[in-house]
């Protein structure tokens, strides 16, 4: 990952080359997350831009000891999106309250309404997971549900959420390792031929 070290140095030294590199490598992954999380492509684009500005402004704060670059990027992007959702939900609540004095209106219900309208299915390894595992990752990671919201939505206790999450990720890791090994084996086979 010599290349990534260079990018990290660019980020830390505010070298402009960092941004196109990050964009080319990670924008699709981050944008995919944002579209699923926000259910709004225009908003997703705005948040992506906001996130990139944060990468640029806070690049010098990135510490490779605390996690991979991508984890840092994705958590900034995710937090930006969640903040946007919260302020949007807050505005909606205020608006609705003033109109119809509807008190029972949380981010949860707006989210569920939104996700029902336009849902983008997950692809890749995560889609091969059993539904009950996949949905936890989907809700938690791609739809920004809180612990409590997941419990309520799936009607399962916290302990079950935690264990399913753990299993889901273990499964994913196994699949991931298997895939990586498979690629390795294919390369090995190809090189033998």
């Amino acid at each position: 990952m010599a290349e990534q070290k260079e990018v990290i140095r660019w980020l830390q030294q505010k070298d402009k080359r960092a941004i196109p590199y990050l964009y080319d490598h990670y924008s699709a992954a981050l944008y995919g997350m944002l579209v699923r999380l926000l259910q709004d492509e225009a908003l997703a684009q705005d948040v992506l831009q906001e996130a990139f500005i944060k990468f640029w402004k806070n690049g010098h704060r990135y510490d490779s000891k605390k996690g991979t670059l991508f984890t840092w990027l994705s958590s900034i992007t995710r937090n930006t999106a969640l903040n946007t959702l919260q302020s949007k939900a807050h505005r909606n609540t205020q608006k609705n309250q003033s109109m119809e004095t509807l008190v029972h209106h949380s981010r949860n219900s707006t989210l569920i309404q939104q996700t029902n309208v336009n849902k983008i299915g997950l692809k890749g390894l995560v889609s091969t997971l059993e539904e009950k595992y996949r949905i936890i990752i989907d809700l938690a990671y791609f739809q920004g549900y809180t612990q409590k919201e997941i419990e309520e939505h799936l009607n399962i206790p916290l302990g079950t959420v935690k264990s399913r999450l753990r299993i889901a990720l273990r499964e994913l890791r196994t699949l991931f390792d298997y895939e990586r090994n498979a690629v390795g084996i294919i390369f090995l086979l190809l090189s033998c031929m």
Partner: protein
Amino acid sequence: MKEQEKILNSGVLEQYVLGLLEREEAAKVEDYLEKYPELKTHVEQVQEVMEKVLLQNGIEPPPHVKEQILSSIDELGQKKRTAPKTTKTQKRRFRLMPILSAMAVVALVLVSFSFLQKYYATSNAYRQLEEKYEVLEKSCEINQAIVAAEREFLMKANTLPIALRGSENTKAPDAHVIVHFNKEEQAALLNVINLPEPPSNKQYQLWANVEDEMISMGVFDGTSLDLQTVDFVENATSLNITLEPFGGSEEATVEQLQASGKV
């Protein structure tokens, strides 16, 4: 069961990676990660998996988004640099000012100089014209005086016009000259009416016949339209014109007689 194993099996690390923990809980997990390297390794593995999941679920943003993001970051950089930039341009302007003012001064000097030159040239021309005017005015006065004097002379009762004419016996048969003659005032004025133009080395000369002797009354300009003063000679019986070498002769060249008239 060891503490780290408990944590590992609880699923809290997965919750941490997926961002399901409250800030306090997350901080607690981070403390554990500092404490137990194997927990940190596990978290890194989970992060790696989620990274893979995210990469596999990527959606390409529309092409304009990249430009938008790059330019918004460019603007940020420019905004940051605008502060020193303005001082830079100020500095540059500051350095430019003396050059500009020096150029203005030079331009002003050049313009003033050319105006000054024009002023001198114009006033010089004016002075010359003034001088010319004065000369003309004087000569005009003189001429007027002359004309007035001539007119007065001609108007006098005792001024007699003597007509000198050419004949078949003279060189210029069509010659016609009038000499206004005043015996009392002893003055004479000559008026050329018609004379052939003389060769450039010759001049007309007027003679008075006094007891058959030709006495010069002076040379005159045969082409002039003005009245010309000639010398007065007493007791002339006739006046004659001959063509003489330039400057006139002591004695009249009779063969060159042009015109004559009796007094």
